[in-house]
């Protein structure tokens, strides 16, 4: 049990995908202009991450490893995620239009996101068992949500700041992210798995 808690902390803080592994930056920069979109994205993201970790774990351990198809893992993971997200999109539109109206746009963005794909790749490489994979997916999702919320709240304040014109928009956001990433170095060594 303690091991699983450690895994959550490790995945969300120590190895935070945005600040220590530098992944998912397109979406990170794209949706953090407003707190509302950041919150919607982080909820959708965490849910998709846990479910895709589960499906991909099953596919990897029961189909790909027995038949020695590991070299196809990129293709298989991408196909599973794209199919799953596409069907979630269709089902949500029929079953709950309200939720679709709020979160549908984020679902479309998720297909081309590196973190969503990095989670099953990392799981396959680290040989986690099923429960560990779920927990790793959850921890990564929470870590990404934390990153989005920190960044969105800073960027809302930044709207009022007097930034030199060439640095407005993305350049200053990058420098900010670098500063937060420096702070996240403080978490390294907190947990050694």
């Amino acid at each position, binding site marked *: 049990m303690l091991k699983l808690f450690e895994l959550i902390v490790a995945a969300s803080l120590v190895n935070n995908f945005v600040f220590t592994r530098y992944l998912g930056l397109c979406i990170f*920069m794209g949706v953090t202009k407003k707190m509302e979109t950041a919150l919607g994205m982080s909820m959708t993201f965490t849910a998709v991450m846990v479910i895709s970790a589960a499906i991909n774990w099953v596919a990897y351990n029961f189909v790909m490893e027995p038949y020695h198809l590991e070299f196809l893992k990129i293709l298989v993971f*991408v196909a599973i995620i794209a199919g799953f997200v596409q069907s979630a999109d269709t089902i949500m539109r029929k079953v709950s239009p309200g939720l679709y109206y709020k979160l549908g746009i984020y679902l479309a963005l998720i*297909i081309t996101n590196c973190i969503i*794909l990095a989670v099953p790749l990392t799981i396959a490489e680290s040989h986690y068992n099923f429960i560990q994979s779920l927990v790793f997916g959850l921890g990564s999702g929470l870590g990404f949500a934390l990153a989005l919320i920190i960044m969105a709240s800073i960027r809302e304040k930044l709207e009022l700041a007097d930034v030199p014109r*060439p640095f407005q928009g*993305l*350049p200053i956001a990058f420098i900010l992210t670098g500063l937060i990433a420096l702070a996240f*170095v403080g978490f390294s060594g907190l947990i050694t798995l």
Partner: protein
Amino acid sequence: MSAAQKISYFGLIRNGIFGENPVFRVALSLCPAVAVTNTLKSGLLMGVAVFFVQVMANISISIVRKLIHARIRLPAYILIIGTWVTVANLLLAAYEWPIYKEIGLYVELIVAFAIILSRAELFASKNEVVPSLFDGLGMGLGFMFALGAISFVRELLGNGALMGYHVVNTHPVLLFALPMGGFFAVGLLMGFFNWIDIRFFGGHGASGAGH
């Protein structure tokens, strides 16, 4: 006719490198620009991998574009891109193992690059094979240029070296050598290119639409 076409091909390549540079102007596919640019060699190798995938994906999607039903086109494009990424991944693992160990995860994740899919959707799915080839060449070169510029700055300022060889003998700027130095390097370079654009070409600077 050939003169007009030559200009437009050249225009496509220039568009990829300057007008719509994947990293500095369109601001898609930012992760490798931060993560694998600590040395010039790994930055350029990553650029070559992306160049290869972009060109091959553009060609193959342009060839099969009429066979794919519009509703399933995105998953189909991603599978085509994924195939070429697997090829690039296995090739790099076979021939450049020491560097592949560091950048392997990012090479695998080329499949999720928004820039490649967006070129497939915006250009290759609507154009003949040859223009798509040149569009891919331009975008790939633009990406290579961006990664080369960032890693050049980072290795020179952070380690005083280029391609692993010691060049200048000054005090290294730790800020660029640290793993998260990529954020600062990208931010500063992006601001620098915006400044050039505003100061000398009267542009607005890329506000950066993000995704």
